[in-house]
């Protein structure tokens, strides 16, 4: 929008007469144009003069207290939201730290300190139990779902995985999956979340975290799992050919202390 175009709309903008799309276009222009901004401010002063010079009407008794209480209520709500957000961030940091620990576990396995793949799968389960307890302790109103991934029929038995789905409604959804694959092949291993009605949600691709280990840690924000995470019934890991490799049912995790 040019200055010429913007100025055609400024008077209507000053009296809130634009539709939302026009309003956004004008505001976008005003952000970068001090000249039009000054003109708009002057027109708004004219508009405000209309309001300020309305004849006084009796203000009801008690309105001041209602206003003070309303601002106080919002102020407290904001404080609580900040506090909850801080706890979620701390939980995220804990998950990230333990994810590193999980990767270290994989590295140890490669050095022969974990004797076989089956034991490596067990190690990742222990790591995830630690993550779960910390997340639950730190994030109020959050729900944690767990899954144990087992090989599908016809697949090697010494591979598997485990994971957690964390959801703080409308604030943050995370998925954290660790998988041990016996003979990895090139190409992306993908994770699907399957809802009770069969709808599939792409959760992301597993990243290599060791010779046989793969990790998915997705924190794409709120509602990654759709509107109702409790509708997710299964987690499926697809191999690079797109065929199911591992599968696990999803269950709400019982509370566990730190």
């Amino acid at each position, binding site marked *: 929008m040019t200055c010429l175009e913007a100025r*055609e709309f*400024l*008077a*209507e903008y*000053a*009296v*809130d*007469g*634009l*539709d939302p799309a026009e309003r956004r276009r004008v505001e976008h222009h005003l952000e970068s144009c001090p000249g039009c*901004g000054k003109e708009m*401010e*002057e*027109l*708004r*002063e*004219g*508009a*405000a*003069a*209309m*309001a*300020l*010079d*309305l*004849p*006084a*009407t009796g*203000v*009801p008794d008690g*309105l*001041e207290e*209602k*206003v*003070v209480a*309303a*601002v*106080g209520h*919002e*102020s407290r709500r904001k404080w609580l939201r900040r506090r909850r957000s801080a706890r979620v961030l701390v939980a995220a940091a804990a998950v990230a730290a333990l994810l590193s620990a999980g990767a270290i576990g994989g590295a140890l396995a490669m050095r022969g300190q974990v004797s076989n793949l089956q034991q490596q799968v067990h190690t990742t389960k222990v790591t995830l139990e630690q993550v779960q307890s910390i997340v639950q302790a730190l994030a109020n109103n959050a729900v944690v779902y767990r899954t144990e991934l087992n090989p599908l029929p016809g697949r090697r038995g010494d591979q598997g995985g485990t994971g957690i789905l964390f959801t703080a409604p409308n604030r943050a959804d995370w998925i954290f999956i660790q998988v041990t694959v016996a003979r990895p092949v090139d190409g992306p291993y993908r994770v699907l979340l399957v809802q009770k009605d069969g709808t599939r949600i792409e959760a992301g691709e597993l990243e290599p975290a060791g010779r046989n280990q793969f990790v998915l840690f997705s924190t794409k924000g709120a509602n990654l799992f759709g509107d109702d995470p409790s509708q997710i019934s299964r987690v499926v890991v697809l191999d690079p050919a797109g065929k199911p490799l591992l599968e696990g049912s999803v269950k709400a995790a019982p509370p566990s202390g730190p």
Partner: protein
Amino acid sequence: MARLVAGDQEAVRTLYARFGPPVYALGMRMLGSSESAEELTQDVFVAAWRKGSAFDASRGRLSTWLMAIAHNVAVDRLRHEHGPSRPPLVFVGDPPEAAPVIEEEHLIGRETARRALLDVSPDERRLLVRAYLQGWTAREIARADGIPLGTVKTRLRTALIKMRAAQVSHARTVARAGGDAE
């Protein structure tokens, strides 16, 4: 303003003492009931508290900023409650009569506005009342009056400039007399 943003009760009371009555009066005029005007007043001060950190005194007056919030909230409520077919709009037959001078004197009572309106033509007066106090859009006014949209926009701009000029002139007069202009 920093104290308001911090939720300081005294800052809220100070702001309310200054602007609570005109915000409530605007709510009464635009929304038509004491209940709606009270809700509007509460919403406006909560919005001011939320947006307080964005207020820049070097770019505009506190009164302009706060009344702009109030008007915006009131217009949103008008359009939400009545939608595109809100009752005051009449698109068939003759356009609504211009508000008589007596009514406008009732609407805009103080010296500043009276003086300003002396310079504002009858068409511009009616336009200001419809656009600002009744929440009509320029397009709606053009359709109702059967005049080009561009003419409505030009008249609205001219009327706002005249209102501001009168406000500035009045503020200077008050300042010279040793009063508080803002």
